[in-house]
Every structure is written in C-alpha cells, then in structure tokens.
C-alpha cells in the first residue's frame, strides 16, 4: 500500500458522509461522561433526523473539562475554533441544540470559541481530539490517519525515519525530556533478534490527565506512533501499559488495536509489506513507581514494580533482557505528524532546545480547568492568566506546581518565564508530564510540601533505604512543622535529609521526592519559619 492507496481509502470513507454538512459532536471522554454526556448523546441522536444533513457523533476531549458536558456544532471536519460550542448541556437541551445547526447559537449554553482558551492553542498531539470518533477506525483514516505510517513504510528506510526524528528535536514528554531521536537510534543500533516497544501510559502524577485524554480521544494516533517506532528500531512486539484507574482509556485502546489489526495496520505484514508488529495492553495496578521505566518493565513481566539501577538502560537490556524502546503516550502521539510533515517543520515550532508543543493539564484554583496544547516557550503568565482565566472568585494567584510530586512550585514573581524543559529547571522545578496545579492565596505551602511527601512516602517501593526511610522521616518532620510543633533544629534536619535522599536514592522517585520541599523552602521559607516553635 502506498500513500495514494491510503488517500483513496480516506476519500471512500469520507464519501460515506457525502450528504452531511454539519456535525453535532458530543464529548464522550471520561470527564464529560461523568458529567452526564452519554444521555445527552442519546437524546441528540433520538432527536436528529437521520436522513438529514446533520450527523450526531461522540468525540474525544475538547479541552474545557470544567464546562462539561460539552457539545460542538461544526461544519463537517471543521476545527474547534470554527464551531459553536455549548457548555453544561443536558438531555433536555437536545431540541434547542439541533435547532441551532446552521443558525444562531443558543445563548444560554453558548461558550465563545474566540476566547484565549481556544484561540491561543496550537494543536498537534490533540489535532483530532474532539473532532473524530475515538471508537471509529474509518473516522481516523478519513481525517488523514495512518498517513505517517504508510509514508514511513512505503517511502522511507528505518534510517530515514531515525534521521527525521533527530531533525525534529522532539524530546520525551514523560518528564525527563530525553531526545527521542537519540533514544530510537540507540535501540536501533543494538544487534538483537528480539526488540520491544513500550508505550508508557501509567500517568501517575496526581493532577495530570493529558495521557488519559489522548488515549481516550485518539488511540489510533498512539498506535500509529508505536508502529513507526517499531519499524525504525526493528521491533516486532509492543506493549501499551495503562493504569487500571483509566478503564475507558483501556477499553478504547483495546478496540483500536482490534480494528487496526483487522484492517491490516497492525499484526503481520502491515499494509502489505514485510513488516509485522503486534501490540498488547498491560494494566497497572495502582503503583506510582511503575511509571519509572525499569519498574514498568518489571510490572509487565508480572513482578513487583520495583526499579533497578541503570545502566544498563532499557535500550540495551530492557524487557526480558532485550533492547527496549520506552516512550510516553504524548511522545508517540507526536510521531505521525513529524513523519508526515517532516522533522524540519516540527523543529520550527517551540524554543531553541524544546521543540513542538506541550499538552498541559490545568487544575486546582483556576477558572478554566482542562487540557490545553500550546507551543513550547509560551509564558506561564499567558498560560495561567489568559488561557486559564486566572484564579476564580477574585482570589490572588500564589504559585503553580509543575512536575507533580517530583517537581516544584513557581511563585507569582516568575510568571513571565517562557515555559520549556530548561527554563523550568532553572527555577528549581521541572516540566514533568504536564500537570499544572494552580494554588491561590489561601493555600498553605508547607502543607503542600507535606502532601507531596506523604505521596512519595506511601508510593516508595521500599527497595532502597534512602527513599524508604528518608521519605518517612521527612514526612514526620513536615507533619510536625505543619502542626506548629517543629523547631529550628527540625527544619535544619529536614534540609539535610533533602540532600541525602536526593543524592543517594536508587531511582527518580526518591531522587526527586525532596523537590517540593526544596522549592517551597526556596520561595516560601517564611511560611515554614512562621510555624516553628522556639526550642
């Protein structure tokens, strides 16, 4: 199969909707579903004249989760900014919504799409989210899906793919920011008769839901990325590791795997070539540390999810000892467009050292809670005040936590920083996977540090002593300080422990567990001191 054949297929699928001029899209991703979007979808379907020019369909996440259930009326194939968007839609609204197709919007439900939340985004990873039906294979192909894979298989050698990835400058979206092209090239170079590709969908950072939305909204995009990776590095088997807390993501991914296989885009002899690639899903079972790559591989092997020292890196000795490529969900979702449009195109977006876009989950004390995708290098102020709408209820912004329990907070004084991997490091935090938790003036920063330490303490796998007992000790000290029972000596001990645990822990969990303490101490030390008692 070549690109022309695929284009023909896409045209054929689009032709099935030839009479349709408008789509009524209902978000059926997790957040809107729990807000009641399925009954809304049913009501709209029942109300819609099936022989007409309008089609009702379930789609993935449109981003503004706090306004769910969301419904959009769009010209066929139109993007979100070109549509009429409705918020908090109920089944009773179905008739009014349908009556507004091609006419004036229903004022009481209307949410403008020219507001910064929608207008300032640049969607690559999420370009299909909220547009296509995540459960439809034909919908994905009709929207241009699998063109990256077919281009790679029919026009490029594995070496070409690797070069394109290196040119793109893409860095891993799982937190570390390791150059993806370099990682792929390392695995590709390994001589081995068996190699694996793993997609890390563990998303353990509490307060992050980007990967969940990608898996629920556009699962074929992730599969396509994995497939291209497998072709480039010479792997024949892949695993998608998804946390069990995301049943809808698991269900949609299972369906996508089945449909891709049936259509010949997965399995043996993909798209009539000699290339074969099988993918299976593996479920997590509620352990944050399993997001760490070596622990994740142990978990796939059916073991306790405990990390091991690196080197050897997974690229040399990974799953069952074979060379393994492990990338994050969002990393894989970036691959197909890079292959389709070229690495140069991707490298033209973002900052000098951080290319492309990043999906962020905005949550906490912020008006527009949901998911956004913006070019790397956008200022934090623009993200929080303009796109996010600032803190609700007129409260003053205090800090934003990035990088979850491994990251740190950024106070108001640094809001003008341009967000990329390197700038966030200079502020003592990190990009992490993309969770941004906004805190307002009512937030007690020492308690925030205690909260994250409690998290790390209970998620420590127990293998190495600095992390196992260090996080416990630090939590004790923080608990004492938050209860105004801590002394200056306790604070000094806490700082010393931060150093020790950071320097001596086995894996990233322990090494980064002190970060929230160090960063709140750096910017809000007076809050700690105000709680200390004289000895």
């Amino acid at each position, binding site marked *: 199969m070549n690109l022309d054949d695929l284009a023909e297929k896409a045209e054929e699928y689009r032709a099935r909707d030839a009479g349709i001029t408008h789509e009524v899209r209902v978000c059926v991703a997790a*957040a809107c579903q*729990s807000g009641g979007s399925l009954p809304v979808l049913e009501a709209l379907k029942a109300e819609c004249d099936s022989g007409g020019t309008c089609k009702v369909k379930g789609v993935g996440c449109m981003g503004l*989760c706090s306004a*769910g259930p969301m419904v959009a009326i769009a010209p066929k194939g139109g993007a979100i900014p070109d549509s009429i968007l409705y918020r908090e839609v109920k089944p009773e609204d179905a008739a009014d919504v349908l009556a507004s197709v091609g006419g004036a919007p229903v004022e009481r439900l209307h949410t403008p799409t020219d507001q910064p939340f929608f207008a300032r985004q640049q969607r690559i990873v999420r370009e299909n989210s909220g547009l296509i039906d995540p459960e439809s294979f034909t919908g994905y192909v009709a929207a241009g899906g699998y063109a990256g894979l077919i281009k790679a298989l029919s026009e490029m050698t594995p070496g070409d793919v690797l070069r394109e990835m290196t040119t793109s400058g893409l860095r891993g979206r799982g937190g570390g920011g390791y150059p993806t092209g370099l990682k792929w090239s390392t695995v590709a170079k390994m001589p081995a008769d068996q190699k694996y590709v793993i997609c890390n969908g563990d998303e353990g950072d509490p307060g992050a839901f980007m990967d969940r939305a990608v898996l629920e909204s556009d699962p074929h995009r992730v599969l396509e990325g994995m497939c291209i990776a497998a072709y480039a590095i010479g792997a024949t088997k892949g695993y998608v590791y998804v946390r069990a*807390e995301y049943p809808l993501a698991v269900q949609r991914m299972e369906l996508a795997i089945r449909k891709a296989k049936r259509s010949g885009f997965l399995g043996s002899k993909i798209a009539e070539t000699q290339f074969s690639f099988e993918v299976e899903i593996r479920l997590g*079972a*509620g352990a944050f540390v399993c997001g760490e790559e070596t622990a994740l591989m142990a978990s796939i092997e059916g*073991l*306790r999810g405990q990390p091991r020292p690196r080197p050897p890196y997974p690229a040399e000795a990974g799953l069952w000892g074979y060379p393994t490529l492990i990338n994050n969900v969002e990393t894989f979702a970036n691959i197909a467009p890079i292959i389709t449009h070229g690495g140069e195109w991707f490298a033209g977006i973002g900052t000098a050292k951080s290319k492309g876009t990043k999906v962020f989950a905005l949550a906490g004390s912020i008006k527009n809670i949901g998911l956004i995708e913006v070019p790397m290098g956008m200022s934090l102020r623009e993200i929080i005040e303009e796109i996010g709408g600032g803190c609700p209820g007129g409260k003053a912004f205090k800090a934003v936590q990035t990088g979850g329990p491994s990251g740190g907070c950024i106070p108001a004084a640094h809001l003008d920083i341009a967000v990329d991997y390197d700038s966030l490091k200079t502020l003592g935090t990190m990009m992490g996977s993309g969770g941004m938790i906004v805190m307002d003036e009512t937030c007690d920063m020492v308690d925030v540090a205690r909260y994250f330490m409690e998290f790390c303490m209970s998620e420590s796998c127990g293998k190495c002593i600095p992390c196992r007992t260090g996080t416990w000790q630090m939590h004790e000290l923080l608990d004492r300080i938050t209860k105004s029972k801590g002394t200056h000596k306790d604070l000094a001990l806490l700082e010393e422990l931060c150093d020790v645990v950071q320097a001596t822990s086995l894996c990233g969990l322990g090494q980064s567990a002190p970060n929230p303490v160090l960063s709140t101490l750096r910017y809000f030390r007076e809050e700690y001191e105000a709680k200390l008692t004289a000895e």
Partner: protein
Amino acid sequence: MSLLQTRPALPSDDKRWKLVNAAMRRNGYAGHALIETLHSVQESFGYLDEPAMRFVAGSLDLPLSKVYGVATFYHLFMLKPKGRHACVVCTGTACYIKGAGSLVDAVEARFGVKPGETTEDDRLSVLAARCVGACSLAPAVVVDGDLAGKQTADRLVAKLEELA
C-alpha cells in the same frame, strides 16, 4: 516441563473460577500474566483471599510467596472483602487543593471509618485513590463505581447515608 505439570482443580464449583481460569488460559498460563490474573480474580470476587492466591500460584507454577508479594505490592489489590458499598475519595493534587481532606474527615466523623476501613455492619468501605484523573470535577469521589464530582462534605455524607 510446564506441559506435563498438572494444574490444580478449581477451588470450588463457583462459576467465577471459570472466568479466572479463562484469563490464565488466554495468556498461556504464563507466569508473567500474574498481574492480569490477579485483576481477573479481583474483578470476579472483589478481593484476593488465600485460597485464590494458592490457586493462582499453582496454576501459573509460581511460588505462593511471589503471588503474595505481588498482591501486596500493588495498591489496587485488596486482600480483604469490601463492604456492600464502596466510596473512593480521590486524594490527587487537584482534589487535595479543593478540599478532599475535609471529605475524608467528614466521612470519618459520620461513619467512623478511615480510608482502607469498612464499617462494622459491612455497609460501607472507604478507600482513597491517588488520582482518578477527573481533576476538572475536583473534589471527586467514586461511589459504587460511579464518579461524582464537585463534592462537599455535606453532599457526600448525605449521598452515603442514602445507600442501603
């Protein structure tokens, strides 16, 4: 020689064991399918007890210690039966910022149980989740499998009181 190994008989004629067995068969009784298997036991029975772990260990030809080690490592696996109803309070960061702590406190004050505990009359189990990924609905709880967002202490307690 796993082909020659005799697999243990199903622990009882409870039909749910057949589901568990089917899950193991699907994975060729491979030891690395242990976590999948434990998921299927928990889905079928609600928790993992000793006979279940012995059965899984025997079927997958793994030492019982390994099965127990894995079962206790992962937070999602429960070794005790849940009450008739389960309330999972999300304690992820977004929910924490929006007051998940006060939900936990209110439930404890009213029903006398902390996360991880079940009321004496077996009516209600309270659990804490690390993040259910519903940050836009914070603070969120999952009551008997249904997610409910934007909770207040009063609303949650009232909801739980209605459960039979």
